[in-house]
């Protein structure tokens, strides 16, 4: 039986510690927790903010599909994914993945897999707001992200 992942898409910030304790509190079968936090960079001082647009409904649905895939591929004891939307300042949290398992490699691989597919499949788009007051436009998808996702084929 696979676990049911927790998936949230929200404007509010998240707390890694709180989300981790939800997966480990009161149980003694978790040996490994891997958490990934994605943060807003200022790109060498260029950016004032990142604006994250999303497709409400599909964002939750698509992340849930990826998270359920991960729960089938690895023997996890828990999996939580939180993705923020809205205007975020440099240093702010954007995305959190917490994967828990009895063993470390399953937790590492599941969190890594989640991030690769979030990047390429979750319906979010980033727009850059510059410190000059201008909007520099939409961030372009990277070929390296597509390549990262394809490495899981047949793995």
């Amino acid at each position, binding site marked *: 039986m696979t676990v049911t992942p927790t998936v949230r898409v929200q404007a509010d910030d998240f707390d890694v510690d709180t989300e981790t304790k939800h997966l480990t509190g009161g149980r003694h079968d978790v040996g490994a927790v891997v958490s990934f936090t994605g943060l807003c960079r200022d790109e060498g001082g260029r950016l004032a903010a990142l604006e*994250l*647009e999303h*497709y409400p409904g599909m964002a939750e649905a698509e992340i849930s599909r990826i998270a359920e895939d991960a729960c089938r591929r690895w023997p996890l004891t828990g999996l939580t994914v939180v993705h923020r939307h809205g205007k975020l300042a440099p240093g702010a949290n954007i995305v959190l993945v917490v994967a828990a398992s009895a063993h470390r490699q399953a937790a590492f691989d599941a969190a890594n897999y989640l991030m690769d597919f979030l990047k390429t499949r979750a*319906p979010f*788009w*980033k727009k850059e707001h510059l410190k000059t007051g201008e909007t520099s*436009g*939409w961030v372009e*998808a990277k070929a390296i992200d597509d390549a990262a996702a394809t490495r899981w084929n047949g793995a």
Partner: protein
Amino acid sequence: MNIRYFAWVREKVGIEEETVTLPDHVATVADLITHLKTLDDNHAAAFADEEVIRVAVDQEHVEADTPLQGAREVAFFPPMTGG
């Protein structure tokens, strides 16, 4: 049929969402794009580089040859940049 646009596709079309009545010859996602391009200059501009545009039918990613039968909502957007 409910059509939604996101990111720069939304900005080029100029609206977030619209309801479009489909002519009989529109059977697939590709047919729908061809039809939308005829609506006005904004739609034509938004879909000018249609190879790059991604499509979701009822909130699931699909390819251009996907049939539209039974679909309630179709969304068009650029490649995703979340995470």
